[in-house]
């Protein structure tokens, strides 16, 4: 089957790729661009481990076809560091002990980032609601919620 040409911006870089029309964004990220921070834990949109931010919206990249992101602006966990500095969420996840096995972490951070980008002062309830989009099997979520609260404080 023919490939199709797709251009988009990823982590502030422009890329143009030849992809299969039925290729998911998660496949493109992990296998073509070797950005393996987004994980496939279910592949069916049920867990959020593959979340990346597309045009400001957190998306489960396992449910997105790469041709759909033509012209989009995409941020993955690899693009969070600015000039070598960690994003406040990354710092807070470390300092609050919100990371255990780490497999949900990048999706969790990207989901939280999209929240902080649209809501500078989320309440605890709003944070809980947002991260209830993602499954973590290790932490019981308490330290993740604390980390997002801490990052929101720092960002303000």
């Amino acid at each position, binding site marked *: 089957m023919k490939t199709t040409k797709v251009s988009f911006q990823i982590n502030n870089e422009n890329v143009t790729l030849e992809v299969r029309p039925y290729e998911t964004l998660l496949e493109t990220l992990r296998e073509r661009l070797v950005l393996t921070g987004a994980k496939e834990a279910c592949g069916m949109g049920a867990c959020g481990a593959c979340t990346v931010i597309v045009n400001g919206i957190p998306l489960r990249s396992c449910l997105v076809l790469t041709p759909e992101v033509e012209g989009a602006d995409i941020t993955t966990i690899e693009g969070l560091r600015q000039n070598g500095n960690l994003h406040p969420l990354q710092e807070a*996840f470390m300092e609050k002990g919100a990371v255990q096995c780490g497999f949900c972490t990048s999706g969790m951070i990207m989901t939280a980032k999209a929240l902080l980008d649209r809501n500078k002062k989320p309440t605890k309830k709003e944070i809980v609601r947002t991260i209830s989009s993602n499954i973590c099997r290790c932490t019981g979520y308490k330290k993740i919620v604390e980390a997002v609260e801490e990052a929101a404080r720092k960002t303000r």
Partner: protein
Amino acid sequence: MKDDLNIVGKRVVRSDSLAKVTGEARYTADLQFPNMLVAKVLRSPYPHARIVGIDVSGALKVPGVKAAISGFDSYGVKWGVFRYTQDHAMLHTDKVRYIGEDIAAVAAVDEETAIEALSQIKVDYEPLPAVYDPIESMKDGAPQIHDQYKNNINVHIHIDVGEVDKAMEKAFLVREDTFTAAGEAYAMMEPYAVVASYKNGYLDLYMPNAGPHVRAKALSNMLKLPLNRVRIRHINSGGAFGGRSEVAPGDLVASLLAIKSGRPVKLVLSREENATSSRQVHDIIATIKTGMKKDGTILAKDYKVIYDGGAYSSTGPIATSIPFYVYEECYRFPNVRYNGYRVFTNKGIRGMYGCHGRAFLAGNEAQMDVMAKELGLDPMDVRLKNGLRAGEVTATKSKITSCGLKETILAAAEKTNFKKRWAKPSKLKGVGMGCVAIMCGFPMGFRSGSSCYVKINDDGQVTLVTGLVDNGQGNESMVIQVASEVLGVPMRDINLVCADTEVTNLDPGAYSQAAAFVGANAVRVACENARKQVVSIAAEKLGVKEADIGLKDGAAYSMKDPDKKMPISWVVREAFFRGEPIVATGSFFPNIDFEREWVTRPWGQMAGTFSFGTSVAEIDIDAETGRITIPRFTSAHDCGRAINPMAVEGQMEGSIQQAGVAAITEGNLWDKGHLLNPDLLEYKVPLACDMPDMDTIIISSRDPAGPFGAKEGGLTVRMNAYSAVACALTNATGELFTELPLTPDKVMKILERKKGVK
């Protein structure tokens, strides 16, 4: 015990977290090697069938396919954790015993080609009658799943201490109840994955695992390769919870394909395959009979517990025993009989689980509360009365060296105002308490100990080499923290090489709660040995006594006269000059009775020490819907000493989720041999919005043998949180649960039973 510690006991940032928050941490599926192939496995669509023939030649004709294998390409060596449980060849050529069992596999240039090739493999099956229920399976005439196990009984653990029948007669109150629980899914976020390559007669593997050395041994047996030709390397692990303890069929599949193709092979299971074909958790039916004195003293326990083991032995004898042991390590049983049966069925293989045994443990604790109530006693008092103390010996002869059980009970009760609230529950609101103890390690022969090699490099930085494994709980960071304490070198200056069979020594692995007590202890000893060498040179150079030397912030200094100091790097360089670089080894071997055997001799010292814990759940039940909500959850855990309290809390909070909240949401659903919820949508891992407010309390009993007094860091909660929920239900309704999980439909039945509605 030394209390003026610099870093042990501090809330430190885990050493592995930077790589994880930046997405740079590599997991097996992230690996890419030149010429790497993608593997796919063909699985049995039958729960039980004779294999008449397997023909993989069609797959090889598909362009892009580089290898195809079945059991006929293996030696057919059957693996078992014990000599008497060797029944799993991973790729069988005679029979399949569950839906999803590995039959054949291909390696191709890409995933699409591999999928296409699977459809070209021909397998002739002759379906056989199958059995799915362990009670049915034990009956005469049931389909026989393995020839060598009569009545499909895989393991029978029989323990008989004291005179149970006599004691029951003497008891003031006797009660017998049966509790069941659906098996859970491990649901670790990272599905199983493996990368294998084979060069020059050497096999090289990456996979998330809980013990690389035992895995390599199993593969060397199955592939008839010398052990030194099988190397398992370190890689991050996306959670395990007991589900990565053993060699997996995929390990063999990827190895065979790599050997055959001469190219690296990557196999990544889908979420569904991970659920159906890696390991599942035992469904359990526990019949519990308890005899109590009028004052609440437990006189006797008589148990019959049936474990649905699925198709193969796996860790059978251990899994059939552990729920009993974690309970007898907690309470005093003068007379006790345990009959544990692990029974084969035509379902996926069941393994050990961090939260293993919930029907048994929650059943015991909830029944205790009903009996206490009948005797007019408070459940907390009954637990304190029957709880073991330091210096006591368990029913099967394990000595308890350090014990904070009482402190955990009191702390959790005080925090929740337990006594008062239990005595007067408001309508459909309840509190419940669950206790348990955990063995920190168990008998694994010469693999029960750990050893560490440490060297200090010319800039004063340290390299640790240990077999210790981290499945996400923070073991790597923990041992770096311990080394930092002993050597006075900041954590960032300590590099760790671990869990690589070529480089590191044996370690009990991350499935026996031994990482802190055994693994970190070996690191401590090695670092203390290195420290002696540093201190000796520093004392000489600074002109002070060795006893006066302290190590801190990468420097050696005189404690009396802190102006006298020198960087450790200078000490190290001096050591190089002397031709005696600073290198040391250290090991720790726990005090375990190695005559002890799970089936034939179930007594003797089980582990070097035990941790203790108490959880209290507060629940509300919606009278109309039966839905339970858990507004608050309190857990107290005696971990000896928390090396990193933040990590211990994290373990406890995760356990509240995985055992406590799971008690109302999680369970595998079956239609005969078909797993109905092999996904993360219909298998209900609790979400952030489902979590209670959590209080975690760390109790420090300071174990005399543990590293800085440490034991294991949080597992008690994993085995008492469901008990707390079940007990809270009893407190709220006056009824015992009969079946876990306590989903609203089951709770509604309990409420209707209470009302007398049929």
